């Protein structure tokens, strides 16, 4: 795991913990937003909207709807940020 990925994970987990008011250490990357964390579609979108704002990534709605786990969200954020950095550098 790269430093950037670890940072993304920590920030995403912190946001989830804040929204759900739970101990961050109890949240695993494999936790599913709906089944394991009890977030319905709107709560999931709220989270992803927070991620979009906090981590400065653009997330399309249909992409957001397809994210199932915390790991999915982190991987997605890292990919988009890498693309954005690549785009800015070119």
């Amino acid at each position, binding site marked *: 795991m790269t430093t950037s990925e670890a940072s993304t994970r920590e920030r995403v987990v912190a946001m989830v913990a804040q929204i*759900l008011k739970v101990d961050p250490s109890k949240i695993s990357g494999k936790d599913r937003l*709906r089944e*394991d964390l009890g977030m319905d579609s709107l*709560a999931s979108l709220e989270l992803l*909207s927070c991620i979009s704002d906090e981590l400065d990534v653009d997330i*399309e709605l249909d992409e957001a709807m397809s994210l199932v786990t915390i790991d*999915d969200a982190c991987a997605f954020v890292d990919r988009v940020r890498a693309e954005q950095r690549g785009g800015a550098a070119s």
Partner: protein
Amino acid sequence: MAAPPPEPIALGLARASALGEALATPHATAAEADALPMVRAEATRLMARLADAATIDRDGEIPSALRATIAEAGLFGLTIPEEHGGAGFSLKATCAVIADLATVERSTAIMIGLHSGLGVRPLVELGTDDVRARYLPEIAAGERVASFSATEAEAGSDLTGIRTTGTLDGDAIRIDGEKAYVTNGSFAGCFTVLCRTPGLGGQRAHSLVFIPRETPGIGIGVEEDKLGIRGSSTVTVTFDAVRIPRELVLGEAGRGIDQAHAALSWGRTLMSAGCVGTARAALELALAHVNTRRQFGKTIGEFTASRAHIARMASRLYAAETLVRWSGHALASGQPIDELSLFVKVLASEASFEICDRALQLHGALGFLEPTGVARLLRDCRITRIFEGANDVLLVRGGAAVLGRRPSPEPLRLALGGALAPEAKSWQALHERFLAAAARVRAEHGVGVVRHQLVLQSIARANLALLVGLGCLLRAEARPDEFALGRHAAEDALAEVEEHLGALSRALHDETRVQALSELLYAPHAGGRAGSA
């Protein structure tokens, strides 16, 4: 990654001919086509004999004799498989029966509808063979009336706020917590309860559990004093160290939210069927009144203003019945109805309230008096815009669901020949405008659109009106005897699409306006202090 669910409109267009036929009938199968008329006739006969709506409203309870007769007639087993003593009816056929019950008396329809959907379906679909065999025959016989408990004082539309908890306790599950607004609660023989189950699934996982009434630790509160459906039982239920065996956790532990939403699809559709029944009763009362009440030398029904009310009521009723049948047909066809049932519920609850309100208006001052029965119908249907998901929230969810799906790359075409060709063409043009508007919203806001509730609601309302327009056109094409009404209902729906696309274009501006004004209005109440007049 999960695939986004299919779009109801796309599925409808792909199978337009079959859908039109399905929307024109109340049954889902050939077997139901034979059995359903008899069940409906018996239900209507016993309701007319035993269900006095005014008395039930006044006394605040469904007479035990009526409940017993309903049980003898098998109406508690409508949605329970035949091998467990039920009728094995589909959602669609059950809706026809619920609408008939509601036409006579709404509280009874609520009791049977809640029992048949939310109360029973999780056990039918998720229970183990042993648990089903043990409890379903009693439930089908009406010896155990079913209930469903999700809502809590601090968890209404937001089910993630649920505090009732199931914890592992040796080889059992211990349930602690309190559920609010439990329909059928005072006489329920079993409770299907959505609770947090940390330790079963993830840290914040929820599960559905089935709790027989005789389990120690269950407390039943007093009946709530309600505006309408006063004969329906609505109580708080407490669970204090209630211990149940693990086999009474329904289905996969930790999947409770999804399971509850699946059950809600049944519940919302059945509740919508009740709205159809109430609306039908209101239209019948209004028709009888306008054809007898005379003013200015003729019956008031002869005035165009009255005819406009009646036409609108019939149009809305047709739309609601069409969408209820669509939801039932979709489920019978193996399609998911989470999203469709949400739209059906919004449409049916709003339509029934509008129809009852217009019926009251047509009755004049008489309608405001309880003996006409119109006031009771209005009171009875008011709750339907709130329970099983407040419409305001459902529209936000619906808008997010619509926007969260990438549109079909293939162009969707509605091609109807004959006299409905112009309306089909209008529908097609509006659908294309809607898709373009939705694409603009996606591009402009991304996932941040979740914070623009008026945008999401406008998207949802435009989508709903398109659903109504499509359903009414397809049904009218399949049934020449319904042509005039179906076309009228479709024309109303198409006008509403225009209206909601206009609202969508103003939504961001409207959000800014209400934000500014609400800050002024809320200021005196900040911190919970009452403002001065």
